[in-house]
């Protein structure tokens, strides 16, 4: 990867600029979270889909939109920090 000028772009820079950019070391949680955020944003953007959910849930559109946006913060809960993840990280670091 490089800029139009030819200067190389660091992976971290790329990640910062284009949200949702993945890499080989990405954890499952990170990837899934990202997918869910994309989905939520798409739902909020499509009025017809929001209507569809609002009818199903019998909530107002404002409430449905708010719930979707709130869900974007933490769509899959807190990151898992069990022993498994630590072991995985160790492998990555080595």
């Amino acid at each position: 990867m490089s800029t139009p000028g030819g200067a190389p772009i660091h992976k971290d820079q790329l990640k910062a600029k284009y949200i949702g950019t993945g890499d080989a070391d990405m954890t499952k949680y990170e990837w899934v979270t990202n997918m869910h955020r994309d989905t939520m944003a798409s739902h909020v953007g499509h009025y017809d889909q929001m209507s569809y959910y609002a009818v199903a849930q019998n909530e107002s559109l404002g409430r449905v939109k708010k719930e979707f946006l709130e869900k974007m913060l933490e769509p899959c809960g807190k990151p898992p920090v069990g022993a498994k993840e630590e072991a995985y990280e160790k492998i990555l670091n080595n």
Partner: protein
Amino acid sequence: MSSITSAAAMKLLDIRLKHAGSIITSAIGEFSTSGVQEIVCLRAGGTIDLFRIVITNVSTENNDDDEEDEEEEVQTTLKLLKRVETRSTLRSLTAIRISGSKKDVILVGADGGCLSLIAFDTATPANNKNSDASVTYKIIHCPSFGKSGCRRDTPGQYLASDPRGGRAVMIASTEKRKLVYVLNRDSGGNITIASPLEAHRPRTVVFDLVGVDNGFDNPIFASLEVQYPEYEDAVLAERKKKTDEEDHEKMEEEERHDVELGQHGDGYTKQLAYYELDLGLNHVSRRWATSTVRSACCLAAIPGGLDGPSGVLVGGEDYIEYLHEGMSPPSSANGNNKITPKRLICAIPRRELHPKSKGILITTISVLRQKKGKFFALAQSELGDVYKVTLQMSKEDKTVVTHMTICLLDTLPIGNGLNISKLALLFVPAEFGDHGLYQFDAIDIEDSAVKFTSEETISAFVKSGESSEDAFYASSENAAAIVPTFRPTILRNMHKVFTLDSLAPVTSVLVGELAGNEVSPQFYTLCGRGPRSSLRILRHGLSVTELAVSELPGVPGGVFNVRDDRTTKNGKFYDRYIVVSFADATLVLSVGETVEEMGKESGFLTSDPTLACSALGNGDKDGGIVQVCPGGVRHIRRVNNQVNVSQWSVPGIKKIECASANESQILIALAGGELIYFELDPMSGNLTEACTRDIGTDVCCLDVGPVPKGKSRSLFAVVGSRDSNVRLLSLAPASLLEPKSSTTLGATKPYSAALSIVDGGDGASELTMTVGLEDGSALRANVDPITGAISTSPSRRFLGARPVSVSRVTLDGSPSTLLLSSRPWIGRNGNGRHSMAPMSYAPLDHGCSFSNEAVREGIVATSGTTLRILSVGENGGNNALLGNDDDEAFNATNVSLRYTPRQMCLLSAKVGETGKKIVLALVESDYNDYGAEEKKSMGFDGTGRLKTTSKKIESKSNDDAMDMDEDSDDDANNEEKKEEADEEDEDDINTRLTPIRGPVPSGKGHWGSCVRLVDPQNACSTLDCVELNRNEAALCCASVRFHSRGGESLLAVGTVTSMTMHPLGHKESHVVLYRVVNGDRLQFLHRTKVDDGPVLSLVHFQGRLLVGIGRTLRLYEMGKRQLLKKCELRGLPTMVKTLHAAGDRAYVGDMMQSLHFIRYDSTANRLVLVARDRSSRPITCQELLDMNTVAVGDKFGNVSILRLPGGADVGAIDVTGTRALWDSSREDATPKLETLCTYHVGEVVTSMTRASLVAGGAESLVYVTVTGRVGAFVPFTSREDVEFYTSLEGYLRVEAPRPTGRDPQAYRSYYAPTKHIIDGDLCDAYAQLPYETKQKIAEQLDRSVGEVMKKLEDTKNALL
């Protein structure tokens, strides 16, 4: 449809029948004309509509001149001025007035990755003063900034403009990106737009965005946002927490898990941030941020500068907060020094029955700036209650807000915005159901209404002793403990003045002629949600109001109107006589307050039939009346109150066959084809015989045409003769009765003819000839106004089974034609197109226009032996509201329902021994709602008409009436009168009825539901309604005939008990069977408990019942006590959503994983998977096209047509029976379905049905969407049509304007490339293109512009 599926490729054309009703967002401003308030709405389906609030005075004056009894009635309507098709997913809208301009322009955020700036303008047509000025639009700028699509980081979701100076606009995405565009004007007055400035903030989710009114300081935008931590930080924080917890014996773990995301204490802070655009440095910075209530979700800007304190109102759950940079904390109510409240916050009054644990979210706030620096805000809650929010400023410093008061205004349908007009009107675009325009009766309601103030809120907090303000305000219990409660009632402070129709959400559609006595099929649609649910029966055609019906002594042979020259009112002529002609007599009726029969005093010859009659003269002089009888032409004049008749008799024994007359010309035809022309001599006032000509063949019909405005005569007459020719003759004095042109009709003969002057495309008037033919069709052709040449491509349309009689009428101020066959039709011109619509009325025999003071634009017609006075539209002929120009006209009959309707099915019920009756069964259910009986026991009243405990509004003095406009004082007066006079007035109550949502249960899994039986033959009246209790919800229904039980049609209903949505769960599910007794009652047969999941679909399958239960498909046989399980197929991917059956096949739509073809192997009694789809589509609906082909709609708004490849079926049947069940469903072995067509409709398609829309017409695939659109996919019948439409679509993809910068092809290929479906909307855009472009495209298609237009029209005509 089988004919087209047999073709190599299925090609369909998408035609819109009814536009989506939902309004995404709206803005009020002065858009097309300075000084006139208009409303711009973004509609689902990608159109921008501009409405004007039109207020007309309808004076209903009694005819008696002595009585001064004039009633002034004001009628308020919304008139569609302009519709802009964008072909994109619209998201946000803001109006902006750029400094130095007198009009507002709109900015639209859509999915094109562009910010579009659109201006409306009024273009006055050059030579047509009669019609309204037409409104045009112009795309001023459309700078592109990102990728297309509704992406998380592509701006477009939020738009905010600088409210004061109109200097800048901010466009934001849901996450991270915010761009600021600076707007300016160049020396020529044109709006310029600078390149965007970035105000990005990573990992920040934006909830709302608003432009702060900051006077003329640097523009500031307020954003409500939350930042989430980076992944690494989140992991670290979790680790730390985990180690802490291990130390603290897991105490905190439990505590933390109690807090749901979005509640206070979940670890996130919601901030209100000010982004300042420094105009000097050309730079945007995050100037100030403060934390706000965690549940906040909407913002509104408070006027600033000299007019107010500036700042924003933040609406959240239970509270509205005022925030501004540098605001001083409110003065504490009591002197507890420990706690110093910092927030200026006020709780909202709550509904009586609302659970204390549940918050009420404020979803929209809107501010109205009044005169003299006064303002107020209206806020609407998610339940629909509208509150008035007022701020009190400190006496010393007008910019310091000290108190806030919130009082309840009224309960309205939940809206997507509140548009307050300066005319004391409120437009509420409802999120579901019809939109309403409301008139305020009172707005200064602080003294009488249920209210709460910020002091009370703050002092409650101080008293509570809670240390943290956030924690106190986060709890709904705290709010519920302090605020007053109210019970929602009918509207108290406003009333509804206008309804804008919207079907949204449509959940199901059924097309068929079920009413039993109509010509063409009706659409039965299930619409609405909760208290606004309805079954709507749509009929193609204009609605007709029947104003009077009277019996006649015989069957009339014609009806005519005679204009009254004596009374002209507002330059309009009303009718004096209605002349009804019989076989041997004429009846003259005088039109006045009542219609009365006239005798000899009228001067008419009543012993003979009348062939034509008309008032003569051009209005300023009484020219008398001409009556043409078979024996001669009679000129009736009134001289000194004496009737003076001069008669021209037919020489010899000949009789007049047919005749036509207008204000100055009379043309008669004698047997044998002799034409005689008379003209009124303007000097002497006498009729003179001007010319005679023999055309050699008997004349069937003729018409002299209307006299053009400002001219003394019509220049052409049309004559239809028995040799199947239609001739156009000149009436110009130099070439009297000379043939100008003619056209031949082939096998049929003309029956009636009319020439009319219609509004052409660009304001010019056109001459059109309409000929009704004996074979029941009508021919329409344009006539060259100079040479009299009939255009080469006349359009012909079949209208009905009877010869067509044509006459001229006026509708909506524009000339139209009335065509009567076995169905009455109206032909109109608008937007450069001609459209025909049937009238929803009984067949008529003869008709002509009719006009008097009460009915300005009516029709008088005869049907059998009755005379009827009708008006088109619903408002009694005054200001008739017709279908929008580019929509097909539909009229709807509403039947209210109890809960949100889910599905319906037709049942053929036995009546008596042999009789059969078709009834319609529907299932209704509402989540988060109590059943009807529970509601009643709680004391809830859905109509709000019960006597309430809250105080009745007292009439107030006018001193502090709403300072919106001069009118407001009058309103207050009216209000007083109303209170006194018509408390019980039913009309008044009707305008004050409002839907009230039932009490919300505090727990999860509550449902209200019922099964209803309606009679389509009797205006869909309810026959029986069975309420399901104990939170049982009916979600699907089907008609089933068990072969083992003699084939009686039973109703099977799938129910789920205590289903919850998040997470999806339920207690148990059932299949309930009902029998229809005597065609009017539901009898419960039995209930079968089914395990494995909720029942979402049922279908009759080979004399048994096939049920989709969760991931299982099961076949049931009827038993005595319950259904008997016969066979099942487990392991479908997610959940069976839709089911169809044909022969031994079942077609299963999965909620996530698209379609599966299943085959029932009766020898082995098992269900075998035949084929599945390659793509995973979340199916919402499906319709069977033939044994191998299914159309499906998915949750993303796509429609696809899938087909089983040839031969795939054979492999699935295992004759040996040795193969295991699961073998056939092995991933590698299952054949895959082919995708024949794909198309992005743009709205979630909720139901599809195959139907022909006219009796005996070709079938098409009718679909409905959640946002209320009705459309049809029409199969092409010829290769020529396919080629024409494919190339036309290709050219229009390039040539059609793109108001939001979205490529039409890319939009239709949103999720998958569009395939074999042609966008009919895009093709219709051809009519709106500039003439040069039209010409260019037509040339490339080897056709003329007229031919292309005709083709487009013909395709639509063939459908309806």
